[in-house]
């Protein structure tokens, strides 16, 4: 947009400066929305500026100083987003935390970052912080957003958001000059100063505090806006963890630079409905939510009337044939266009409306590989869904898919201002204005990840194809070798399995072993639906997972993956020989997957060692296992099961080629 | 365990399919047969001739459909009265038919007594309220928590009381509805249609419009107001409704009053087409097939059921009636209802009947 473009010069190189600019040029446009008591409340940029001003003065009065670190814990709430700007306006550094992490996990981050203030959402988070307060000697004040259940708490070091605002308002009333001084203080900082600490969720080991500068975030955000033509008219829904770099760029960086409005859902359970009501124009999600939505549609369609089902199937076939071509601007016969147009009227339009994507301009999926069918499904509906490859250390963007060059199997071309090279071991290295300053208080790790001339080791293995698109196979250190020297990329194989709707999670073993073997987690929604159709009776997740028919169905999927692998040259040797279906869902509360749903392969291997051993014991077809599980409230229990192990036939390479030829 | 629960349902499903197959086969055989046997045979008269007639004279077909729609509107209103009361109080109200007559009679009666038409109309509405209040006081309240069958018997009693009471006050002879006096139009619109012409009575159009408005108002009332919410609450769960402070008596009066207004409207429309006489209450029994078709608890069911019955009886009368010397419209609806009971006892929209064994 011209207005934003003209004034969006680098003089606005920090968030507080951008806030002033936005209050000035977008004054009466909405900046933030939240659904509260069933109604969407909204705040304009002017109002946000006013709140942040009072809030910052309140925090200052409570003793927040430049250089302090401030923890932010909670779901996506306007007040927590305002905390970023308020804290930054005082020269302090916000440290968002994953709101789901248990107190033990959280204490590491809070301690490591030496936080002095904690701004939290509600009683649950207050309790969590208080329970570890004795380990946090520097922590001085806690501020909470929602006061429910907190009336009886000792108010000495505990303040409600309203009270802080009130304190700030009174301060300014007493001495109006404070505001001038506050705003003048913004000029002490510029783009190269520290903006935020984002702790990585840590697939391995303890989390690392990625230190990002204003430039890192704002240049990345501006590049992102320019790349997709985003302006102050966009609508987004903030629902991904605030501690995640993606949300920080999309819901904070891009919103402040482009001036668009960010809406916060009413609660975590209402996200789908809220998205329908907001109709975002710009949307971001890891593959999982897209998978869930597709599963839901499929399930609904199976229960729909014959006419609706027929319409759906017919027009989805049309979409499969021409939808993506139309979206990519390729030539399509006139009749196909007519059919597609009818499909838009009867099927795609209503479906998109149902999902809240009617106004979607561009959507991104990242974090993990998305199933090609799922990706194509959304694109064939006319939704401009693209893939992106990014890292916290890069301020998100490493590669993105430009419009018109979108494929399911690549992560796109280098993002604006990003240089990429692949080293001898196959690892991807990148350099960009988004590249982080350092890991907080961890020089060794910084040295390991970032070269002197600014190249960052991504830790991922990948290659460029002829079209200049990057393919990411796996974590570089995870790409292992079987005993006979065959290349073994576990995640690559796992993802192939996870593309089946019936499989939620898969864990591959094989590095340094004789063959590749698998743990599989069934997808409860999908499999229970399948079970209902096939008259399979079960009482619990565990029973369903152990059902012989379920095993046979999963075996089919495994065989299909073997068939694919057999057609992929060297990987033919990495076919899956044995598998088992796990008796429980892998759970972040048990540390089995990360909060961003990445499997901790090593940890799972340790935890279920008897099962892994059984997989590699050719005579063992049933293994007993007893697992300790943690309930949501922190109590522990034991889960016992006998898990069946199945052999799978591997596919000969010639056979695979024959099948391919027949298709 | 799973076998025993599964087999019967599979068996019944295939039985259902077989029924359809048999029907289809019979129909095919009949058509083929008629072609073989030729014109004049019974099979030809039933399966071929009427359809040829439809094609030959589409204007007549449209006219018949229209007549059916109008009759159907009135049936729908009748069914609606039943459904309202059944939903809210679980009473199958046999007296709905006589309420139609009673409503129309009081309107005519008030006017005959020299009261202006509009005031008579308002008085008749008040009369329906008095009736609702009295029914709650005298019939429902003393019999609360009694078996539905007993309440049903009580409504039969109510029917005969109202017949006697009505004859005592208004006399037994048929009367003419004060159609024009209360502002209903007369005359008709005619227009050419595919080589013939179709004629629509203005009164019928007014009936359809008024019925639609009435249904719309009721829908808003039941879905959007606190009383409507209370009413649906009572229909769903008596005890829970009591526990939030809803008084059943008040709700019953309101429901019977609503049914009374529906009855009054039906009575006026019907009276305008024929006479106002006690014989109308027999016609009112047509509501039975309507609610069997639509389901006892469904308001949309009553409306759609009414329209289906209205249209099909007129079609049957016009195209097949002559075969048996006419007047089959008086029994065809019951026949259709019987067929429905066979395949779908809960009606088109009714709640599934699940009896625990």
């Amino acid at each position, binding site marked *: 947009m011209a207005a934003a473009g003209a004034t969006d010069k680098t003089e606005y190189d920090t968030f507080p400066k951008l806030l002033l600019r936005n209050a000035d040029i977008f004054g009466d446009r909405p900046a933030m929305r939240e659904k509260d008591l069933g109604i969407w409340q909204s705040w304009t940029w002017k109002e946000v500026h006013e709140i942040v001003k009072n809030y910052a003065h309140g925090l200052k009065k409570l003793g927040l100083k430049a250089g302090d670190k401030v923890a932010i814990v909670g779901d996506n709430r306007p007040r927590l987003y305002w905390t970023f700007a308020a804290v930054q306006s005082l020269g302090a550094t916000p440290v968002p935390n994953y709101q789901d992490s248990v107190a033990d996990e959280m204490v590491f981050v809070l301690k490591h970052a030496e936080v002095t203030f904690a701004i939290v959402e509600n009683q649950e988070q207050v309790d969590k912080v208080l329970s570890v307060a004795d380990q946090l000697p520097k922590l001085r004040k806690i501020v909470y957003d929602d006061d429910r259940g907190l009336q009886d708490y000792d108010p000495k070091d505990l303040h409600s958001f309203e009270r802080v605002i009130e304190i700030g308002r009174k301060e300014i009333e007493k001495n109006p000059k404070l505001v001038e001084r506050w705003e003048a203080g913004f000029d002490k900082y510029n783009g190269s100063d520290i903006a935020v600490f984002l702790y990585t969720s840590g697939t391995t080991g303890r989390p690392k505090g990625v230190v990002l500068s204003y430039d890192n975030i704002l240049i990345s955000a501006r590049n992102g806006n320019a790349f997709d033509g985003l302006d102050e008219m966009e609508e987004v829904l903030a629902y991904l963890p605030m501690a995640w770099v993606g949300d920080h760029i999309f819901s904070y960086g891009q919103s402040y630079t482009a001036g668009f409005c960010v809406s916060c859902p009413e609660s975590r359970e209402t996200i789908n409905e809220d998205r329908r009501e907001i109709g975002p124009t710009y949307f971001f999600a890891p593959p999982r939510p897209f998978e869930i939505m597709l599963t839901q549609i499929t399930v609904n369609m199976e229960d729909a009337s014959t006419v609706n089902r027929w319409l759906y199937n017919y027009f989805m076939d049309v979409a499969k044939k021409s939808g993506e071509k139309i979206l990519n601007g390729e030539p399509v016969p006139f009749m196909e266009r007519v059919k597609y147009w009818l499909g838009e009227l009867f099927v795609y339009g209503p479906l998109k409306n149902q999902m809240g994507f009617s106004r979607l301009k561009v959507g991104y999926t990242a974090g993990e590989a998305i199933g090609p069918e799922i990706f194509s499904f959304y694109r064939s509906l006319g939704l401009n869904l693209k893939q992106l490859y990014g890292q916290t250390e890069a301020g998100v963007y490493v590669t993105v898919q430009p419009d018109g060059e979108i494929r399911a199997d690549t992560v796109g071309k280098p993002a604006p201002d990003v240089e990429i090279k692949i080293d001898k071991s196959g690892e991807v290295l990148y350099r960009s204005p988004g590249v982080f300053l350092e890991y907080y208080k961890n020089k060794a790790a910084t040295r390991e990840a970032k070269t002197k001339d600014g190249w960052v080791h991504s830790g991922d293995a990948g290659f460029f194809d002829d079209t200049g698109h990057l393919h990411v196979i796996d974590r570089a250190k995870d790409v292992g070798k079987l005993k006979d020297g065959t290349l073994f990329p576990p995640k690559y194989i796992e993802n192939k399995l996870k593309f089946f709707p019936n499989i939620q999670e898969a864990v591959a073993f094989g590095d340094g072993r004789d063959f590749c073997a698998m743990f599989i987690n069934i997808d409860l929604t999908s499999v229970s639906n399948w079970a209902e159709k096939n008259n399979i009776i079960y009482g619990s997740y565990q029973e369903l997972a152990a059902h012989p028919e379920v095993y046979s169905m999963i075996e089919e999927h495994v065989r299909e993956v073997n068939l694919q692998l057999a057609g992929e040259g060297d990987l033919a040797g990495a076919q899956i020989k044995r598998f088992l279906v796990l008796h429980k869902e892998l759970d972040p509360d048990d540390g089995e997957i990360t909060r961003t749903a990445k499997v901790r392969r090593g940890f799972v291997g340790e935890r279920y060692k008897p099962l892994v051993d059984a997989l590699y014991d050719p005579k063992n077809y049933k293994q007993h296992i007893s697992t300790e599980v943690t*309930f949501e409230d922190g109590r522990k229990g034991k889960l016992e099961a006998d898990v069946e192990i199945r052999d799978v036939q591997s596919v000969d390479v010639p056979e695979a080629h024959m099948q391919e030829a027949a298709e | 365990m799973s076998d025993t629960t599964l087999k019967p349902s599979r068996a019944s499903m295939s039985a259902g399919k077989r029924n359809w197959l048999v029907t289809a086969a019979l129909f095919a055989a009949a058509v083929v047969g008629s072609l073989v046997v030729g014109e004049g045979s019974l099979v030809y008269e039933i399966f071929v001739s009427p359809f040829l007639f439809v094609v030959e004279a589409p204007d007549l077909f449209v006219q018949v459909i229209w007549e059916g729609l109008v009759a159907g509107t009135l049936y729908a209103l009748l069914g609606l009265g039943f459904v309202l009361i059944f939903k809210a109080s679980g009473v199958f109200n046999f007296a709905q038919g006589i309420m139609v007559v009673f409503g129309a009679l009081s309107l005519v009666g008030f006017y005959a007594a020299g009261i202006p038409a509009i005031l008579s109309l308002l008085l008749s509405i008040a009369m329906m309220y008095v009736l609702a209040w009295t029914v709650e006081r005298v019939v429902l309240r003393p019999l609360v928590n009694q078996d539905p069958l007993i309440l049903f018997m009580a409504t039969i009693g109510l029917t005969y009381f109202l017949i006697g009471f009505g004859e005592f006050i208004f006399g037994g002879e048929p009367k003419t509805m004060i159609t024009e006096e209360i502002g209903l139009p007369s005359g008709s619109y005619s227009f050419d249609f595919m080589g013939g012409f179709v004629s629509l009575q203005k009164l019928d159009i007014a009936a359809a419009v008024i019925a639609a408005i009435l249904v719309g108002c009721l829908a808003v009332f039941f879905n959007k107001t606190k009383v409507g919410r209370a009413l649906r609450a009572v229909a769903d769960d008596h005890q829970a409704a009591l526990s939030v402070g809803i008084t059943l008596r008040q709700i019953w009066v309101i429901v019977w009053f609503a049914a009374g207004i529906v009855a009054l409207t039906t009575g006026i429309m019907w009276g305008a087409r024929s006479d106002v006489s006690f014989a109308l209450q027999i016609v009112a029994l047509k509501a039975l097939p309507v609610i069997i078709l639509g389901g006892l608890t469904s308001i949309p069911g009553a409306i759609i059921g009414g329209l289906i019955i209205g249209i099909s009886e007129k079609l049957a009368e016009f195209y097949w009636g002559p075969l048996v010397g006419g007047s089959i419209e008086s029994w065809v609806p019951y026949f259709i209802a019987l067929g429905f009971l066979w395949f779908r006892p809960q009606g088109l929209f009714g709640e599934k009947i699940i009896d625990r064994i």
Partner: protein
Amino acid sequence: MNTAIAEIQPGKPILAMDHISLSFGGVKAIRDVSFDIRKGEIRAIIGPNGAGKTSLLNVINGFYHPQEGIINYKGAKRNDMKPYVAASQGIARTFQNVALFAGMSTLDNIMSGRMLKMKVALPWHIIRFGPAEREEIEHREFVEQIIDFLEIQAIRRTPVGRLPYGLQKRVELGRALAMEPELLLLDEPMAGMNLEEKEDMSRFVLDVNDQFGTTIALIEHDMGVVMDISDRVIVLDYGQKIADGTPDEVKNNQNVIDAYLGVAH
């Protein structure tokens, strides 16, 4: 109706049952039971199946009319309650087997709890205009706060018949709360729930008691829950009161131990 209704101070009895007996035909459901419920407390009623617990709740909110005894609610003495009187004077309840209006949405179910608080006359509601519209909005706001309190925003528009059991119980609690009760009767609020749902429900019960000062009488089978959340406990067996006191007192009462172990009478 006795109009001598006093404002009851916390800690003083809001309800006193004096020598209540109830029988159906020849079956004695409640025999000469006396007890009180103090304002602000959580009072549990426990006992083996068929001990008369639900009958007792039904007497309190007027579904059953006892043959003998006196009910003193907020200083007004009566021989029996009527449901309407109970509801309009601040007694709300939930049911053992969930009695919701299955065809209506969560929102409408909870709104139905506002019935008695809505004062605007019927004709306004029929045309849904002016004061009725304002009243509807005002009560909707109150209901939204309950929805927020019970964390059921996601099911606001769902017909309750389609909800899982645990959520239905929550909606039922919401409907009772919408009445702004002074005395809330909960008939087995945690029956049929899993551990997590039970904990949620216990938290809600405690929060209601704590934040709104609502007096609560509840029937519950889960002894852990009862001992955790209640201030005083009445134990019934075969329609008779066999113990009354704090959870600890009751736990150690020999009659109670006998009744639960099934010692012959």
